[in-house]
């Protein structure tokens, strides 16, 4: 029986990693669509969200099935619990990517304006956080996961700064209000994604150490 359980857990691992690949790519494409004001790419991203939702449901059902059938303990149990939560977080990231793609569509309708803050630096940072958290999921690397938790603070600070930058710009050019608000939303979305990657990293730390470290960073 344990061999059967092990096989199912391996299968589960494959599934969550496949999901993570799709989500990482979706996020990357959302940022790319924003960068190039690429409407068709943005449409792809929004359409992709549906697939991710399906994958999320499948994965969750798989987790529940293993929990009900095998009643795993210790590391197996922690793994499944972590997968359940990471699954959720990944789906949220995909949702937010779709939202960012929506912002692309929104921005495409306005005249281009200079971006009020270092949007792509921020996006790059968030993307590297996502990459690191997923890498740490693959390799069960505690150090990488801790890195992610620390990077979150930087992104939070950037978001806070962006707020005042956008406010100033609105005061300066009130006619650019609409696109500026879109950019502000993007900043908030990015900040949310950073939070979610932090959650993933924390779940990974929980899976490895068995210690819940949420709310301590």
């Amino acid at each position, binding site marked *: 029986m344990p061999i059967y359980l092990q096989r199912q857990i391996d299968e589960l691992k494959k599934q969550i990693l496949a999901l993570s690949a*799709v989500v990482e790519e979706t996020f990357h494409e959302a940022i790319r669509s924003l960068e190039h004001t690429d409407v068709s790419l943005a449409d792809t991203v929004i359409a992709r969200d549906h697939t991710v939702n399906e994958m999320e449901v499948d994965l969750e059902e798989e987790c529940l099935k293993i929990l009900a059938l095998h009643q795993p303990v210790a590391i197996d149990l922690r793994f499944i619990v972590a997968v359940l939560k990471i699954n959720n977080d990944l789906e949220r990231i995909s949702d937010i990517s779709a939202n960012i793609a929506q912002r692309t569509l929104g921005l495409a309708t306005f005249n281009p304006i200079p971006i009020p803050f270092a949007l792509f630096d921020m996006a790059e940072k968030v993307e590297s956080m996502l990459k690191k958290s997923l890498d740490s999921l693959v390799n069960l690397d505690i150090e990488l996961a801790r890195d992610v938790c620390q990077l979150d603070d930087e992104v939070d600070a950037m978001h806070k700064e962006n707020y005042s930058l956008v406010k100033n710009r609105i005061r300066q050019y009130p006619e650019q209000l609409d696109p500026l608000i879109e950019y502000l939303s993007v900043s908030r979305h990015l900040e949310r994604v950073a939070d979610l990657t932090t959650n993933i990293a924390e779940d990974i730390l929980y899976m490895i150490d068995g210690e819940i470290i949420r709310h301590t960073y």
Partner: protein
Amino acid sequence: MRLRFIWQILPSFLFIILLTLVLLTWLFSRALSNFYLEQTSAGLETRASLVAFQVADSFTTGDFEQLDALSILIGEETATRFTFILPSGVVLADTLEDPAQMDNHAGRPEVAKALKGDIGKSTRYSNTVHNNMMYVAIPVKNNNQLAGVVRAALPVTAIDLALDAVYRQIILSGILVLLLAAGVGIFISRRISRPLERMRLGAENFARGDLSKRLRVEGVQEISALATAMNAMAAELNEKLKTVVRQHNEQKAVLASMVEGVLAVDTNERIIRINRAAAALLEVSAEEVQGRSIQEAIRKADLQRFVSRALSTRDPVEGDIVLRGSEDLYLQAHGSLLRGESGQEFGALIVLNDVTRLRRLENIRRDFVANVSHELKTPITTIKGFIETLQDGAIQDHQSAVQFLEIMMRQADRLNEIIDDLLILARVEQNSDQDELPLENLPLNPVIETAMQACAKMAAEKQITIESYCPPGLTAHINAPLLEQAVVNLLTNAIKYSPEQGKVLIETTRSEKDITISVRDWGCGIDKVHLPRLFERFYRADKARSRKLGGTGLGLAIVKHIAQAHGGEVTVSSKPGQGSTFSLRLPAKPIRTP
């Protein structure tokens, strides 16, 4: 537990020897005792006959006194007991006993037989002398009349004693033979088992993969033949292994040196093998990903989907894969199932072709055609439009007509500029293609000065200061007019995109390998999206603005080609809002001798 060889053969060895000894002893002792008994009975018979002959008369005469004396005398002389018995069974005389004391002997088996006229023989226990005795009785005849019986007797204990001595000797020699046999057995089994033991060690060596050592050929024929056979086996195995290793290495080398990425996965989507090209394309290390599942090793959704598709379809599959990264990679993938010898599937083979460059060239070509038609079409449309307006009567309105003609003139100038630039480009390209651009070793400073003077007017309009730092006397192999053109183009751009009262910096530095002329401005900068394509013909980072600022869209393409004609290159680094730096790098050593 397995017995050692020696314990296999020694007990059976000893058992057979023991059996032989016992059998021999038994046969020998029987033969011996038979022989002895026969001899004894024959002797007794002879003696009895002799005595009977002598005493025949006494029996008839009834001289019993003489008989008694005779029996004692002869008995003592021959160490034999004699008994004389009448036909009635009455004992007349005895060597050992007083006849009067003895009972009637007619019932004794030997006597009974003798009374019938035969020779009677018997061996039994005698109560008289308390011993096993052999008796031989013969009838005494006088004138064919039975006169009595003469019985001779000897104790048979002598036989037992003789047999005992024989037994003792046999047992003694038996033990000796046993010991000898054990020694010989041990010796032989050692002789057989020691080479076997050595062979076992040798075979264990073979099993461990050390096929270079050979077994010693020794011992008996069978064992030495075995050793020879095993040596031959080792040599053959060694040869086979070497072939396998060589073939494996060949295959690996073939796979590794393929330009196409090759990726093999098993049915569980685990990576069996990945070649260097594939590892480089997918940005993974070939050693690390080996044996891991594709989901774990390569986080590329398109590729994962393609692998599952290749594994689930019988026929070969084909598809495009986009690898998102800092730069997108476009791959063309072919997948087919891997089948074993018996036809069962054990995985899939994915071949990846990098078509990014093709895609990019395709894009460039498409954009070029679109851009060039756009750039040429715009002025022509404008000119045509104004001509039509003039034809429609605007020519009468002197003031507008002059204004229209001015605009037409500007557009014609623009067309001219574009065509001039295209011509320069064509010339530079042609020259550098045919390697006939004349290069001379000239100081750089005057070239830069001239370029600065050419842009001075334009800079003065925007109150921009141009500063140049160039080590005096620095020379390079250049074509002065072309290099000047390149610097002018870079300067024009820098001035155009700088804010008023700004600054442009020209820095010339020399390093070991090359000379770098960098033009730096603190203008609006360029988004990094545009950087890779900036030097394409007619490529515009910001379409609306750059056309407003003038320029043909060919300036940087010309710079690039001039740099290439000099054997150098041009690069750009830029940050939005912080300005840009264009660096023109020329090789310090001449690319060819003029």
